């Protein structure tokens, strides 16, 4: 993301950011029995029907696509929590509220693949978009303060 002369080398493309976000851990409830998976990126399972298990997002989406599990909405992705966050974001112009680093990508992946597992999906989506707008605005005003003499800007 750094400002370099060659943007192709330095900027993370949206698909690369999504790739990174797919490693975030989510909770799934499988409906099948499956042996433990010993993968390069870690060990997951064993899986039993109706017993929650923690897996990376890409694995959850893969299972979901095949109808083998439901994905539990993360705690922060509920209407209550997001409304609180949005209010707090609007109240304090200098501070950011705690949210997962990849909240935009995680929520997008969940909306694309596990819409039926999210309660009040429509509301949650518009809340996340509002939060994003408020935050982007803050970041932009923050970056405007950078001048030739600036050495450091704290983002959060």
């Amino acid at each position: 993301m750094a400002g370099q002369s060659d943007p192709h080398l330095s900027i993370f493309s949206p698909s690369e950011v999504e790739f990174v976000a797919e490693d975030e851990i989510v909770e799934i409830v499988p409906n099948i029995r499956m042996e433990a998976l010993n993968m390069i990126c870690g060990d997951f399972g064993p899986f039993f029907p109706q017993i929650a298990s923690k897996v990376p997002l890409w694995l959850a989406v893969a299972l979901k696509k095949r109808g083998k599990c439901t994905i539990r909405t993360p705690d922060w992705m509920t209407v209550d929590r997001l409304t609180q966050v949005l209010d707090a974001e609007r109240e304090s112009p200098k501070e950011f509220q705690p949210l997962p680093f990849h909240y935009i990508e995680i929520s997008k992946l969940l909306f694309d693949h596990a819409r039926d597992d999210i309660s009040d999906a429509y509301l949650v989506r518009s809340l996340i978009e509002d939060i994003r707008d408020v935050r982007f605005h803050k970041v932009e005003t923050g970056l405007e303060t950078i001048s030739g003499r600036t050495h450091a800007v704290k983002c959060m």
Partner: protein
Amino acid sequence: MSSWEDDDSAAAAAAAAAASTDVELLKRAWRNEKASPEILRFDSPLVSRVREQIQLLEETLDDFGESGVDDLVVSLYQMDLDRTLFLLRSYLRLRLQKIEKYMMHISKSEDLLSRLSQQEQRFAKSCTEMMEKHLEQSVLSKLPYGYDSVTRQSLSSTEDDMVPEPQLDTFVFCKTKSDVGAFQLDDIGEEVVDLVADDLYVLRYKSIKGLVESGQIDLI
């Protein structure tokens, strides 16, 4: 007392190492490499460990095909393999792009050369030779005396002013992994920033270079 503390910190370090898998480490290296303007040190042991794991998984997948394991399980392992392969390829390719861009600059300095793997050093060397030969044949040999150097504009140049160099004072986004404490950003000590764990900052790359190399800070 001191040995007890040493044991403690050694145990903590071991726990931290065990907590992050090789893929995690490779991902960090890939991210840092992507965001930093200059080429970073190549972690040969890490890359060869990841290569071994990839090979092992490829063999396991072949065995699966023969022994008739559930298709679902096979496809999940395949995805895991593809993701790791993508990461490794992207990392290596990224480094090659950087080497191509700054090959002359890298070839000049022993310190920069030592950051490359052996294959990368060979690549940088042959690339530089080819480029020099090409420029020599197509342009430089037709220019008058005094203007025929690959690295300098003319004889009156006091330094190599035709070699592309990475911009080290560009701003980078970074995330601290642990408390660094008050950190001095410039040579004269006018700008001091308190780096707290897990915070995001926008800083000049030059000032935090050392922290990136020692692994106390991650670029994003």
